[in-house]
């Protein structure tokens, strides 16, 4: 079976790469246009896929928005896990930092904004503009990525995983305990979106219609896919692959492992921060309990099940793991169990993932050949 999936995706990939450039461009354009059309999906037959056609189903565009946010996370985490080969089990920490950045600086309910209002004699309606929160969120996530990576990236891979798991928990506990700064477990509301604080006057990015939010998230995803793809094929991307495959050999070739690992961490963190910001803006309300360790595990599952190292793979993994529990709500209670079983089966039978990166599949195969006879 595993050979089958690998064979099919490989054959499609070969076919794809051999097409003339203009045909690929047309296909890309058609694909992107279809993605933008998705929330309006009304083609007979395909409506079966909509989540609001089932009883108690969530808004279809809302589910698509969540898919887009998780794809963004998967792309960011893929830089860390898939490209640089570092297992980060605390990715939810960066997601939370992005979400809390926009909440703490953009919401009039946040203690931070209220303190600034008092200190500088600003009115009670003053808050940092949403657009200005974006660089704050990115910077906060990147800085925390560097602060976490600086001491820990020198550790062995398995230690790094445990320390990052602790980091994700610490961020959550800090958000819960520092009541004077974050409002504690009660959370923060009135988080602004592109049109400012939530109100009935927001005709585009309001609370009711998720379609514009999906289009916004999709646009961000497409921009990030483009940027990360450029990065993958650059000197930095090649260094990441070299470090992942053999750090010592890479060091001999003059690749500074630590520096590039830190870059991977910072870039991954920035993407996590952006997705957290999008999520918080759409929700309008966040609280620490939304950022628990189970979410980190879900993020890792998206990357690994899809095929770490391959952007199409991780995006597919993110969409699958977000969409399926929404479409099949009758089994929603079993969703975590299903994630666990899926993750386990993928690891045991196709460790390279459903849509693997070729290079990674080959790497695993080589290792299998080198396995000692008595293992």
């Amino acid at each position, binding site marked *: 079976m595993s050979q089958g999936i690998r064979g099919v995706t490989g054959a499609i990939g070969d076919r794809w790469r051999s097409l003339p450039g203009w045909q690929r461009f047309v296909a890309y354009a058609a694909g992107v246009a279809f993605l933008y059309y998705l929330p309006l999906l009304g083609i007979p037959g395909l409506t079966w896929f909509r989540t609001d056609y089932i009883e108690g189903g969530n808004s279809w565009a809302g589910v698509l928005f969540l898919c887009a946010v998780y794809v963004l996370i998967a792309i960011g985490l893929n830089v860390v*896990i898939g490209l640089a*080969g570092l*297992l980060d*089990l605390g990715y939810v920490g960066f997601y939370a930092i992005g979400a809390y950045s926009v909440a703490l600086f953009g919401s009039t309910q946040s203690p931070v904004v209220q303190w600034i209002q008092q200190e500088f004699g600003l009115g009670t309606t003053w808050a940092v503009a949403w657009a200005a929160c974006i660089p704050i969120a990115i910077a906060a996530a990147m800085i925390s990525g560097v602060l976490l990576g600086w*001491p*820990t990236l020198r*550790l*062995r*891979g*398995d*230690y790094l*995983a*445990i*320390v990052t*798991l*602790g*980091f994700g*928990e*610490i961020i959550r*506990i800090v958000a819960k*305990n520092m009541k004077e700064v974050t409002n504690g477990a009660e959370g923060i509301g009135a988080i602004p979106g592109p049109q400012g604080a939530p109100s009935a006057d927001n005709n585009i990015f309001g609370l009711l219609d998720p379609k514009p939010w999906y289009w916004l998230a999709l646009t961000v995803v497409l921009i990030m896919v483009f940027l990360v793809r450029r990065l993958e094929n650059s000197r930095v991307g090649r260094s990441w692959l070299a470090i992942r495959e053999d750090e010592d050999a890479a060091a001999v070739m003059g690749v500074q492992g630590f520096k590039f690992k830190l870059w991977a961490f910072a870039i991954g963190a920035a993407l996590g921060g952006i997705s957290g910001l999008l999520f918080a803006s759409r929700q309008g309300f966040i609280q620490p309990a939304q950022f628990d*360790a189970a979410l980190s*595990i879900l993020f*890792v*599952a998206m990357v*690994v099940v899809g095929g770490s190292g391959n952007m199409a793979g991780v995006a597919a993994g993110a969409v699958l793991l977000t969409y399926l529990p929404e479409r099949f709500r009758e089994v929603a*209670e*079993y969703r*975590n*169990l299903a*994630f*666990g*079983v899926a*993750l*386990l089966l993928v*690891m*045991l039978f196709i*460790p390279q993932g459903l849509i693997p990166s070729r290079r990674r599949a080959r790497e*695993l195969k080589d*290792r*299998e050949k*080198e*396995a*000692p006879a*008595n*293992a």
Partner: protein
Amino acid sequence: MNWNALFENIGQHTIDGLAKGAIFALVALGYTLVYGVLRLINFAHSEVWMVGTFAIFGFWSLLGVTDNPPLGTAIMLLLGGLLVGAAASGGTALLVERTAYRRLRQKNVPPLIFLITAIAISLVLQEIFGLWQGRLVVGMPSLIKRETVLTIGNAEINNIQIIILVSALVMMVGLDWFVNKTRNGRAIRAVAQNPDSAALMGINKDRVIMLVFVLGGIMAGAAALLWDMRYQITKFDIGFVLGLKAFTAAVLGGIGNLRGALLGGLLLGVIEVYGATLTQSTWEDVFAFVVLVVVLLFRPTGLLGESLGRARA
């Protein structure tokens, strides 16, 4: 920071910390044994322990145990619980090794894949118990009534703390003896030192690895019994935090080092109780992570160094 609360009762906090740490130490042994032999972190070990807590709970509720039975009955129930817990945890550990890890070892996959597999196993075990036993805290009867039996200065030591400390020490001395003095223990140490040479000397590596998983599971089962007796609760996701703390204890003492796990566990328990007193409990769970990061930064081999049994060449 509430330094007064700490220093006025420092003896009491130390005793509480040691009793807490003894449970960490027993769970830490499972991480240390597997790491010593396979150089892998068995992330699913926390769930092996969780299964033990539920098995003992199930055993007691099957017998219809009520609060504070007569002493003789209580002792029988505790010994029975030890057997049930050890069997459940040991069996789970063995199952995990046979169904998942062995397959991965044969494929010689990178360590990250082991770790992700272990996380998947944790999630599956947690969810099975979450769906089966509900997602709320499960309470159980108290078998032994808490009574102060010893007073040193103003520190009061109760009977449950004594039972925990003594039985944890007995289990650990027994394990240390097994690994250092018996034929099977010698095989474990041989595989830990050099798996290939051990195989050439006629040691069945797979059997040794299974033995190591079972031993770790039995220790986790004992820890589960002490936990059930002391805290009288369990929950489907209770393993997560305790597992992290036990792992921290193992790293603190030197992962792969049995005596290190004891030292690390007791030390971490004391640090945590001191920390909780200083911060009025709100930051209790953060101390383990901070200790872990500090140890990994300044002494990644732990206080007693990494090795199973004797020093590694």
